[in-house]
């Protein structure tokens, strides 16, 4: 197999942050001695972003007031409904707890299987030769395709959701871990072998730290994939959790409620992204660039 790093398979493109270090492009820095423009200051960026938000919401509000409330709810109505759903005893909060909880269990399973399997496949060519076809097939196959089979195999149970989350999250993790192990400096491994390190020591002290940035790239993808898998399972098979609340609201044409749930799903997704980026920043200090996440 040819070298397979996450970037090559379209996975490892660096996450985009809001940090001005990353977004300032070299051409714009060419004029030496010029004061940083308005758009490069924190205040300027904040004002522009706030203005964008106001424009988007204003247009939405203006447009939504003209159409039927069953088709599109104006932001004011969504906000009102959101307060109502979070403040009173609605199904939303239990649904969020249920969905996020299930996602974490499924993710823990994926990590427990994915990282060791990736380490083994990256380290031993025999294991890779044997397992690679299956891993690759399941990696490129959209995990949604398993919903009908899982319904029959597991019933409408939490097991179905866990299985789908596992199918979505485990394979990006495996593939990135393999890439990470292959990316580890061969000289370090040779050094370890020369000093008679055993396989466990090599794994713990060389392979694992060395491939951690790649594992995190996989984790970031796996984390979002797990969330997608969870929502998909809830929407296509089980009608519970946040996906269930969403479908139910849509079936009754309560568009404001639908948007509240969509924004809640979005909030969870954004929190997940932020959390993984932070975790990576703390756990892999040696691969920190000067950008802060």
């Amino acid at each position, binding site marked *: 197999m040819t*070298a397979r*790093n996450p*970037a090559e*398979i*379209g996975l490892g*493109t*660096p996450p*985009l942050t*809001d940090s001005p270090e*990353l*977004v300032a*492009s070299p*051409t714009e820095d060419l004029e030496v001695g010029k004061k940083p*423009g308005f*758009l490069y200051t924190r205040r300027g960026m904040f004002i*522009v*972003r706030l203005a*964008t*938000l106001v424009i*988007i919401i204003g247009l939405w509000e203006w447009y939504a007031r003209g159409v039927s409330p*069953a088709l599109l709810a104006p932001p004011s109505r969504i906000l009102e409904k959101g307060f109502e759903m979070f403040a009173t005893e609605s199904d939303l909060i239990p649904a969020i707890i249920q969905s996020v909880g299930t996602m974490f269990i499924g993710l823990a399973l994926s990590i427990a299987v994915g990282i060791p399997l990736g380490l083994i496949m990256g*380290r*031993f*060519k025999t*294991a890779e*030769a*044997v397992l*690679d*076809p299956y891993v690759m*097939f399941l990696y*490129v*196959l*959209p*995990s*949604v*395709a398993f*919903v*009908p*089979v899982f319904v*029959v*195999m597991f019933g409408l149970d939490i097991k179905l959701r866990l299985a789908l989350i596992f199918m979505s999250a485990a394979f990006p993790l495996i593939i990135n871990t393999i890439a990470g192990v292959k990316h580890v400096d*061969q000289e370090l*491994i*040779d050094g370890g072998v020369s000093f008679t390190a055993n396989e466990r020591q090599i794994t713990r002290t060389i392979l694992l730290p060395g491939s951690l940035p790649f594992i995190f790239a996989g984790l970031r993808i796996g984390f*979002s994939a797990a969330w997608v898998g969870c929502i*998909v399972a809830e*929407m296509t098979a089980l009608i519970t959790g946040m*996906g269930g609340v*969403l*479908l139910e609201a*849509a079936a009754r044409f309560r*568009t404001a409620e639908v948007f509240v*749930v*969509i924004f809640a*799903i*979005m909030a969870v*997704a*954004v929190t*997940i*992204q932020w959390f993984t980026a932070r975790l990576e920043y703390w756990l892999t200090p040696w691969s920190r660039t000067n950008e802060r996440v």
Partner: protein
Amino acid sequence: MSAAVGPYDSLQPTSRIASRFATRKNALRLLSLIVVFSVWEILGSSNPFFASHPLAILEAAQADLIPVVLPAFVTTIIALATGLAIATPIGVGIGFAMGRIRLMDVALTPYINAIYATPRIALIPVLVLWLGISFELRVTIVALGAVFPIIINTYAGSKHVDSELLDTGYSFTANSRQILRTIVMPSSLPFIFAGFRIGIGRGVSGVIVAEMTSALTGLGRIMIENAKYLQIAEVFVSIMVLGIFSLFLFEGVARVQQWLTPWGNTERLR
């Protein structure tokens, strides 16, 4: 794993060893395929409703593949291709605009990132209200799934241009159009391809979900229908078709990328 070939045997890179390993690798793969399928056959045939088994799948494929699965698959592919055809120019355009124009960058980045992280599946109920369970719905889902990875990767690509190349361009008084066409675009092409590949993956899973939840045709629909009547072997026929198609697409785009952008040194993307 007693005879495991450790990575350090690459210290002696003779072609003889490499070719011997290649033969051994293929033999191992074949062996593992035989073992896996036999075990699946034995376990599956004792309990046909649970997970089916290879012979039943083969039989179902003979009966279903041409008359049922392929026509459904064609509708799926048409929706997928249309969605990608819409998403690619829009994504590349917005990505470059964000990468080159500071105001666009500052104004849009947080919102694009937030939407990118959100499962687009959640939008299906709203889109059904607007578009019905039509062809347009599926195309919209595909386009929404694909456009954000393309935007983000194009943006990243236009930011990762080697500054020495840009300096050289400016030194030789290239104008901004020439800079864009001859330096920025070629050097971000590998990134755009990476985004396109992610976009394809998201598009495929989006169209399948859309068909499963709200369509009357397509591969997703066929799978749900088969599952309803507990025809698991037939479901596996669709899964296999989808998997093989995804593999070819995945490898195919990679080949095209290598052929079109031989300068895209993937090692440097990390």
